């Protein structure tokens, strides 16, 4: 029994070339299935795979034996085992991670992202939704619209999936009752409108009995719409929609096989590019003309959204990885401050103010996230006050990047609007984000061009500007050595200034406490002040515990190469605690002082400090001499 939507074995057997020609011109639809636990998701996917002959006899045999061993359907086949491929999933009978499955009909190839339903796997659902053109939201006809239905619809809508298919499943268990179906559709419509979903298609189905899956069911004669496969085969796919948009391509790689060839390789995000088109390279804004669109199969007259190509220009303008090539007449914006929706995906909470890597298109920059404006309760859609975001939570926050990035709002362009955040130390992908718009102040606050440069400031003082950054535990000897360094430089007629941790907290930073977020902000402000002073040509000396590598790195990246000199005052905690100059260790040990570095708050040892001072082997004066030698040694 072969349904007409699936491949015709007759054609394969008779005329394989004709079949292949047909297969070659299939389009591809990526979709996601979501719904709550036990709504029949796995059964539906199992059926789609089975009907399209994507399950082979040997796989079916092992599925049958697995079903008897670890299945949840008694002696029947448990289709969930077909998609739950990890040992832990089979043991626990739940889906933990996204599985990608494949099947095809006569006209289209499909990639299904099968996503777990539980709230704790929100990040996996978001992962699956990010590449989908369509979402199948399954509802158990006996249960109606549930919390998970709402959560998944909301997430799919946030991720920009415009095709929503509401599959009201298990119709066989409610006697194919039209009133039940209509009531569910009405309830869903009210909810959908409330979160901004303007359109969806509802189909009454039974995954188990096969109603309205690949053919119209006689059991639902009251339903006149498309069956499931008809809808999946007919819906417009994203690549076609993206073609109608302006041309944008992020440069991945500069292709230079020899001196005569310089091409820019990338995958076209939106629009069409033709030989002879005027293009603009962003963020520089330089314009050029497309000389050729190069592929191994020959030069192309035009290339469209979704294609990976190499573009050559008429002239040698500057262009490298991270730049975006766009149509000359309507290029996208560049900015460094944004509002964005952020889905937090890491076990460790978001730390407002900490610098993370932000990857968008082929651009990678350092970025900080402010405390969220609000967090969204994904079950009720309520906006809640929040100080941070934890695993699987979604919020809206401001994001600041350390330099301008080329972007478009996510709703207009997924490629230039969707980003991930990466922890700088663990390298884990910690969040996904969707840009809304750039903040007005980023557009209106411009750098004021000044005539006297930082080099001129420094030249007048006969020195090169530097920031000497002392880091180490409380009581390690930072302030003592820093003071000696400044005295010595002063005697040598160098213009210096010492920024001391305690002193700054009496003024500039007196509003800050000692939580992790406040400590990060403390260092950020000190970094900015040190940078301004170095612009004035001074040798700035700072003495702060500055316990986190990420923040020391943040200050380093504000300055030019070679200007930031990290001095690690390496004193074992036992020695520092024994000295206990300010009596702070005693207080911390007794519990009077919270968040004390080395006791109940971590200290991250520098990995690439320019100078390391071992205070157990060197006097403060020897240390100061060594630092001044290094500092002035290279002019």
């Amino acid at each position: 029994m072969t349904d007409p939507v699936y491949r015709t074995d007759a054609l394969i057997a008779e005329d394989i070339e004709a079949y292949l020609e047909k297969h070659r011109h299939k389009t591809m639809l990526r979709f996601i299935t979501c719904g709550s636990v036990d709504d029949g998701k796995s059964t539906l996917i199992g059926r789609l795979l089975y009907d399209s002959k994507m399950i082979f006899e040997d796989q079916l045999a092992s599925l049958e034996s697995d079903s008897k061993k670890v299945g949840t359907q008694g002696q029947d086949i448990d289709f969930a085992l077909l998609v739950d491929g990890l040992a832990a999933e089979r043991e626990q009978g739940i889906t933990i991670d996204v599985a990608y499955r494949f099947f095809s009909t006569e006209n289209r190839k499909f990639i299904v992202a099968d996503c777990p339903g539980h709230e704790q796997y929100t990040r996996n659902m978001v992962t699956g939704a990010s590449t989908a053109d369509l979402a199948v939201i399954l509802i158990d006809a006996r249960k109606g619209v549930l919390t998970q239905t709402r959560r998944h619809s909301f997430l799919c809508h946030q991720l920009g999936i415009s095709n929503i298919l509401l599959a009201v499943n298990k119709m066989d268990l409610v006697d194919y009752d039209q009133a039940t179906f209509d009531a569910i559709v009405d309830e869903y419509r009210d909810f959908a409108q409330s979160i901004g979903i303007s359109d969806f298609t509802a189909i009454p189905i039974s995954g188990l009995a096969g109603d309205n899956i690949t053919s119209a069911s006689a059991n639902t004669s009251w339903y006149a719409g498309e069956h499931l496969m008809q809808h999946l085969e007919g819906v417009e796919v994203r690549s076609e929609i993206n073609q109608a948009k302006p041309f944008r391509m992020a440069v991945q790689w500069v292709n230079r096989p020899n001196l005569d060839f310089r091409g820019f390789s990338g995958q076209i995000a939106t629009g069409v590019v033709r030989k002879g088109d005027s293009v603009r390279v962003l963020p520089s804004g330089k314009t050029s003309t497309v000389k050729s669109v190069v592929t191994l199969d020959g030069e192309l007259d035009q290339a469209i959204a979704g294609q990976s190509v190499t573009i050559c220009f008429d002239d040698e303008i500057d262009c490298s990885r991270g730049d975006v090539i766009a149509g000359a007449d309507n290029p996208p914006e560049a900015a460094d401050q944004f509002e964005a929706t952020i889905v937090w995906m890491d076990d460790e909470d978001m730390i407002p103010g900490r610098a993370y890597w932000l990857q968008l298109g082929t651009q990678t920059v350092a970025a900080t996230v402010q405390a969220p404006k609000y967090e969204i309760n994904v079950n009720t859609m309520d906006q809640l006050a929040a100080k941070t975001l934890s695993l699987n939570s979604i919020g809206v926050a401001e994001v600041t990047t350390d330099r301008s990035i080329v972007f478009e709002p996510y709703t207009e362009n997924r490629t230039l609007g969707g980003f991930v955040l990466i922890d700088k130390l663990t390298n884990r992908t910690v969040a996904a984000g969707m840009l809304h718009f750039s903040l007005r102040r980023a557009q209106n606050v411009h750098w004021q061009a000044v005539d006297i440069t930082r080099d001129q400031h420094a030249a007048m003082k006969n020195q090169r500007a530097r920031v000497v950054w002392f880091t180490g535990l409380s009581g390690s000897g930072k302030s003592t050595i820093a003071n000696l360094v400044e005295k010595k430089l002063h005697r040598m007629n160098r213009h210096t200034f010492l920024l001391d941790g305690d002193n700054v907290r009496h003024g500039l930073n007196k509003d800050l406490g000692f939580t992790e977020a406040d400590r990060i902000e403390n260092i950020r402000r000190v970094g900015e002040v040190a940078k301004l002073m170095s612009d004035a040509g001074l040798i700035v000396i700072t003495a702060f515990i500055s316990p986190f590598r990420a923040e020391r790195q943040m200050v380093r990246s504000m300055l030019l190469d070679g200007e930031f000199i990290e001095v690690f005052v390496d004193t074992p905690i036992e020695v520092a605690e024994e000295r206990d100059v300010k009596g702070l260790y005693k207080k911390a040990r007794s519990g009077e002082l919270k968040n004390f570095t080395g006791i109940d708050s971590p200290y991250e040892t520098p990995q690439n400090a320019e100078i390391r001072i071992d205070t157990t082997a060197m006097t403060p004066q020897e240390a100061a001499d060594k630092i001044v030698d290094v500092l002035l040694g290279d002019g």
Partner: protein
Amino acid sequence: MTSKLTHLQRLEAESIHIMREVVAQADKPVMLYSVGKDSAVMLHVAKKAFYPSPPPFPLLHVDTTWKFRAMYDLRQQAADDAGMELLVHQNSEAKERGINPFDHGPVHTDMWKTQGLKQALDNYGFDAAFGGARRDEEKSRAKERVFSFRSASHGWDPKNQRPELWNLYNARKAKGESIRVFPLSNWTELDIWQYIHLENIEIVPLYFAAQRPTFEWDGGLFMADDEERLERVMGKKPEITMRSVRFRTLGCFPLTGAVESTAATLPEVIQETLLTTTSERQGRVIDKDAGGAGMEKKKQEGYF
């Protein structure tokens, strides 16, 4: 007027994007080349991704010494055609101890392939390795990311994978850690065959039916690619029958089952593939180790 990309064009464009991301982000990438049909497609796509430059990384064959002779024949030629360097690694310990598929069962795969691969990656200091695996091959593969992060000891933790959104791939890692990259993740067996057909890609002749010397062993049908060597390790001469056979996948010849077939051209092979009722890995002995989670367990230990 819009033109539509066919699904093969979309798959190809996606694979190219993935390969370029690796080259842009990794320090020292390498492409694992096993001389099979998926490898052939991966190499072909690599040529397209970097044209007119040759692919900017070497090919690495982790050799078990038990591959079919026809595979060894095609190996160097494929690398030369692509303008790439070919590296071959054989685990010297496995060689000294004479590890073979007959006496050592799963140890053969572990020593030659898993340990061999780890040694090669460590020796050369590769931090990203392309592999031609597809998600439709096996159920734990269906759950694996395109960029599959491996610890310094090459372990895969299926429960702790980096979320992979849109077409953004995070290739950051600490020293010693590495990433396995699967640019053909979203291709199916039929896509591979069709692409080979359309693009006229050369593959090992063993995929096409011919009269070959075969013997039955452990319930399967195998080809006697090297009768003398077989006799040496099996302790007796295998009973050879000439049969018209071909292979759906290629690995070590004593571990890769042949299928009886008369499909001698690519269209015939595709036709047979489409009409078959068993999966392509059905003849692969190694998938059946350790129950249903055999491949997952191997991958956790560092297998591809």
